[in-house]
Structures are given as structure tokens and as C-alpha cells.
């Protein structure tokens, strides 16, 4: 019943070859960087990874690509990643591109027990190929399916010992949805507090979705595009 793991390595120790992982983050923001590193070290292979992006060559999910641990990637945007490009062109990597909003909703749907839903997004485009359509009020919509993962890897700001999570600023992004959609959800966080210390009205992910919580050390939080104004 204790959800708090002693190390990130422990937290991801039963992820197996061939598993489907749903991974939070947008670009390099709010990614579970410690869980990814631990998976790189463990070396599990043939992973299907569902995540909006795929990191960059030397950070985030790019590390698992570089290690050839990913068999299939479901994402909305995979630009700016040379290794991805190589593996995609060589056919080593299978890629399913999904519009970002559809991807977010598919993950939420998976977590919410909804096997399919209709959206106007993508009608008449290549991503409609092979998908069922249906009319509602004279307009055509695509059927999109929910996604459930064997594991969900989440990065949050704070957790309590019951797995309740809060996120910081735009590091929230896909993480709350990803948390819903894992058969086992692993949340790595910057701080773990006692149950009752988070305001019940401000919890972004209720602990019911979270099976394991682990504190990550020394977050790098790399910035992809530093843009500033002069004071």
C-alpha cells in the first residue's frame, strides 16, 4: 500500500520489453527525465511510446531512441530530432502521427474508460485514411480510439504519500492525462509531502490514478528554446 518508491530504478524495475508506455511532457518541459534515464540504464527494448514529442537527440525520449529501445512512437510532433529522422527513414522505427488534440483526448479517453470518440480534427486529411467516419448534424467526424498504457510515466511538481499530484505552470501539459491512462502510473516528482499537506481543492491529479511516487534528484529541466527580452 505504500506508494513511495525508494529510487527511480525501483519505480521502473518491472517495465518489460514490448510494453506500451505513455509519457508526459511537451517538448522538454515537464518530462519524466529521471524515469527515462532509468529506462535507458535498464535497457528494455521494443517499447511502444506514446508521447506528444520524442525529446531531442541527447535528452528526454531521444535517449531511448539513441539506444534503439523504441519500436513504435505515437506522437504529434517529432521535429528537431536527427536520430528519430534516421530511424524513421531506415524503417527501424514505426511512427503513428496523431494531431495533438486528438492525442490528448485519446489518452484521456483511455484513462476514462471511453474506447472511442468522434472529432472533426483531421477530416479530409491523410490522418483520416482507414478511419471510420460518422455524421452528426450533417457534419463529418472521425472515430478515434482511446489509448491505455501498460505503464504511464509522469512528471509532477509535488506529490503527497497517497499519490495526489500538483504540477507547475506549463509543465502540467499532458501529464494529468497520462496519469489517468496507465495500468500502472509512476509519478516522479520534485518533492513528496505528507497526505493532507496539499490543498484538496488544488490537486491536479487525484492519487487514485497513481500507483507509485518517487522523488527525482537534480532535475536538469533543459530549455529547448531560450527566448528573452533585454531588461
Amino acid at each position: 500500500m505504500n506508494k513511495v518508491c525508494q529510487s527511480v530504478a525501483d519505480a521502473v524495475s518491472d517495465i518489460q520489453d514490448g510494453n506500451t508506455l505513455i509519457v508526459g511532457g511537451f517538448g522538454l518541459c515537464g518530462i519524466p527525465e529521471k524515469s527515462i534515464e532509468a529506462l535507458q540504464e535498464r535497457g528494455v527494448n521494443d517499447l511502444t511510446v506514446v508521447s506528444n514529442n520524442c525529446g531531442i537527440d541527447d535528452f528526454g525520449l531521444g535517449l531511448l531512441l539513441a539506444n534503439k529501445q523504441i519500436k513504435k512512437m505515437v506522437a504529434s510532433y517529432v521535429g528537431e530530432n536527427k536520430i528519430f529522422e534516421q530511424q524513421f527513414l531506415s524503417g527501424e522505427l514505426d511512427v503513428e502521427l496523431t494531431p495533438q488534440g486528438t492525442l490528448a483526448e485519446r489518452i484521456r479517453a483511455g484513462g476514462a474508460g471511453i474506447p472511442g470518440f468522434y472529432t472533426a480534427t483531421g477530416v479530409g486529411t491523410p490522418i483520416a485514411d482507414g478511419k471510420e467516419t460518422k455524421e452528426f448534424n450533417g457534419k463529418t467526424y472521425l472515430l478515434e480510439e482511446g489509448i491505455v498504457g501498460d505503464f504511464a510515466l509522469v512528471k509532477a511538481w509535488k506529490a503527497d504519500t497517497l499519490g495526489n499530484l500538483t504540477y507547475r505552470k506549463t509543465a502540467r501539459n499532458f501529464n494529468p492525462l497520462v496519469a489517468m491512462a496507465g495500468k500502472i502510473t509512476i509519478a516522479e516528482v520534485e518533492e513528496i509531502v505528507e497526505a493532507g499537506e496539499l490543498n484538496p481543492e488544488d490537486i491536479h491529479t487525484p492519487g487514485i490514478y497513481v500507483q507509485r511516487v518517487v522523488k527525482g534528484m537534480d532535475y536538469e529541466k533543459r530549455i529547448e528554446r531560450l527566448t528573452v527580452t533585454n531588461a
Partner: protein
Amino acid sequence: MKDARITIVKRAVQEIKDGMNVNLGIGMPTLVANEIPTDFNVLLQSENGLLGIGPYPIAGQEDADLINAGKETITTVPGSSFFDSAESFAMIRGGHIDLAILGGMEVAENGDLANWMIPGKVVKGMGGAMDLVAGAKRVVVIMDHVNKHGISKVKKMCTLPLTGKAVVHRLITDMAVFDFTDQGMVLVETASGVTVDEVKEKTEATFTVAKGL
């Protein structure tokens, strides 16, 4: 900024009315933000989970947990809110975004838009573009009128894979402004110093000309 870009951005900002919730695409559309009148209450949405984007941070105050959809470090304005990606696209898909301004590769006379992939080149992905064009109340595309070879990007039919079918409400180029209506594509404005005939010459698409032009 190149002259063409300045023309387009200055014209694009006129699409933004006080009180609107607006999503600006990556690239040239992002530049529109700087031109919004400061007395307007406009909230800019970032599809990664923020309503109320502020300017870039002062050097040294950047926050890795605070980025826009282009992955740039940003700030927030008073009254901003953070939310998750499903909520963000509920806003977009559900028609709560008043205006989306997006870049384009090709726009066809029926309002089709292509802006996400070029066959034969490596696919980077559509990101949120397909959701934005399908869901925003009003979709304005901004792009150069012709490509670097002088070929019209305003087409009878798109040759590139579509981002959305019949989704564009207005197209703003460095030469002209077009609306897409039930009666087809209509030239509604020409840029300063550009004649209707010049627009016709540089445009592959068939369009009518609004009265008084």
C-alpha cells in the same frame, strides 16, 4: 523583418479585436503578438496549457516550466490560467478560441489548407494545427503569396497533404486579403501599391473581387 513579413503581420493584427481569445501559430504568426494594441484585453492561448501568454522573460528570469507551443520561454499576464492538454484542446475543438492565426504552405480556393508536410521531406508532425483549423471559431492563414520560385501558393487545389478541408475563413498574404464564403473565394483587399490585376496574375486560384475594389 522582411518587408513582406511586415506587411503581413501588420495586416494580420487587425484581425484581433478587443476581448478575443486568440491562438497564434508558430513562426510568423507569433510575431503578431507584439503588434496587438496595448489597451486591448486579448488573451493568447498556448496549446500546451496556458491562456494568457506574456512577453519573453527578462534574461535570467526564464523558467523551464513555462514555455509556449513553440517551446520558447515566456511569461504570463495577470488573469492567466494553466491547464492540461485535454482541457486546452477542449477549448480549441469546442469552438472557444475566437481566432487562430496560422502560417500556410498552400491555400486552395475552397478554403483547404496545407501547412504540415511536404511529401519526400521528413515529416515533423502536425502538432496542434489540425485541431486548431477544425475547431477555432475563425481561422486566418498568413503566408507569402508566391514561393521563392514565384509560383502562387494560392491554389485551385492544394497539391500538398491537407491540414484541413474548407477550414480557412480568411487568407492574408503580402499582396492581398481573401475571404472564403459560400459563394467561393473573394478578394477583399489588396496591399498598398498592389493592383487587382497584379493579384490576379500572381494567383492560381479562381476568385471574385469584392465590390468597390
